[in-house]
């Protein structure tokens, strides 16, 4: 119990993460997620065939320091651990897979791995994510993201929920190495929308839904 509390405090206090919210949703659900910024895009379609496991197709655009690199692949997402508390939920996900990376019109095999952890109640949200893509040719892509969020009101189930968040991203091989983005998140039912502008003026627009 002490260890669990420690983990939750760690997640809540440190937490980071990206716009990613749902590597695994509920059993039988399909999720569509897209995250977009000038220096990278990330698109996922997931199918949760178990309550703790999903298969995902993924396409990424990365503006590297010496040109654009794309990645297309399949991955398996696994809900490693979930804590359901009276007033909170916390999750740890891991995922990995492989595909094709394209750089300078050259294709090469690539593999991808990552983890994501989040903790939230109805007022606060925190998340951390780290992932790594290794192509057999071309530059590696490493990515660490963190998020902290606060809700101005505790939305009920049938209301539009609003969140204000700050996202920090670090990816040393992209043209933009470190980006901090204040953003707003809105969601209603199964539809989620986020938008923001980084401290350096980079736009961000994310969309997610599941059915």
């Amino acid at each position, binding site marked *: 119990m002490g260890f669990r509390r420690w983990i939750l405090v760690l997640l809540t206090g440190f937490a980071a993460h990206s716009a990613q*919210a749902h590597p695994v949703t*509920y059993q039988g659900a399909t999720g569509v997620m897209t995250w977009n910024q000038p220096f990278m895009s990330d698109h996922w379609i997931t199918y949760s065939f178990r309550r703790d496991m999903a298969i995902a197709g993924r396409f990424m655009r990365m503006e590297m320091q010496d040109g654009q690199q794309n990645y297309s692949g399949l991955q398996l997402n696994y809900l490693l651990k979930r804590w359901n508390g009276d007033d*909170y939920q916390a999750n740890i996900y891991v995922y990995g897979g492989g595909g094709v990376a394209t750089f300078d019109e050259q294709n090469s095999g690539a593999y991808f791995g990552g983890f994501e952890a989040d903790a939230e*109640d*109805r007022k606060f949200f925190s998340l951390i994510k780290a992932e790594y893509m290794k192509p057999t040719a071309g530059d590696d892509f490493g990515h660490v993201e963190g998020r902290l969020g606060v809700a101005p009101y505790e*939305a*009920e*189930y049938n209301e539009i*929920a609003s969140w204000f968040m700050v996202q920090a991203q670090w990816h040393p091989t992209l043209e933009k190495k470190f980006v901090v983005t204040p953003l707003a998140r809105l969601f209603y039912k199964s539809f989620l929308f986020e938008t923001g502008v980084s401290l350096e003026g980079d736009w961000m627009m994310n969309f997610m839904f599941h059915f």
Partner: protein
Amino acid sequence: MKLKELVFVSLLIVVPTMAQAKPITVQVKGMVCAFCAQGIEKKFKALSEIASVNVSLETKLVKLDTKEGKDVPDDQIKKIITEAGYEVVKVERAQ
């Protein structure tokens, strides 16, 4: 004649009571986000026995109204909540 009337009146009272839908209240742990809890509503609404589903993040309750003469066993309720990613604390049925 009086006995027949008595039986008829009794049936009028008893039969609708027997067929009446009984609300089920499920207390759920971990339900803090409406976006994440959609699976609960979707899965219960897919059951032919269910008339309506109401989810409250404030009270952490899922209220199920069944159709007349229908019921959903506790095991099935717990399975649906678990597959949606949550934990059932208790299932209560209106008397």
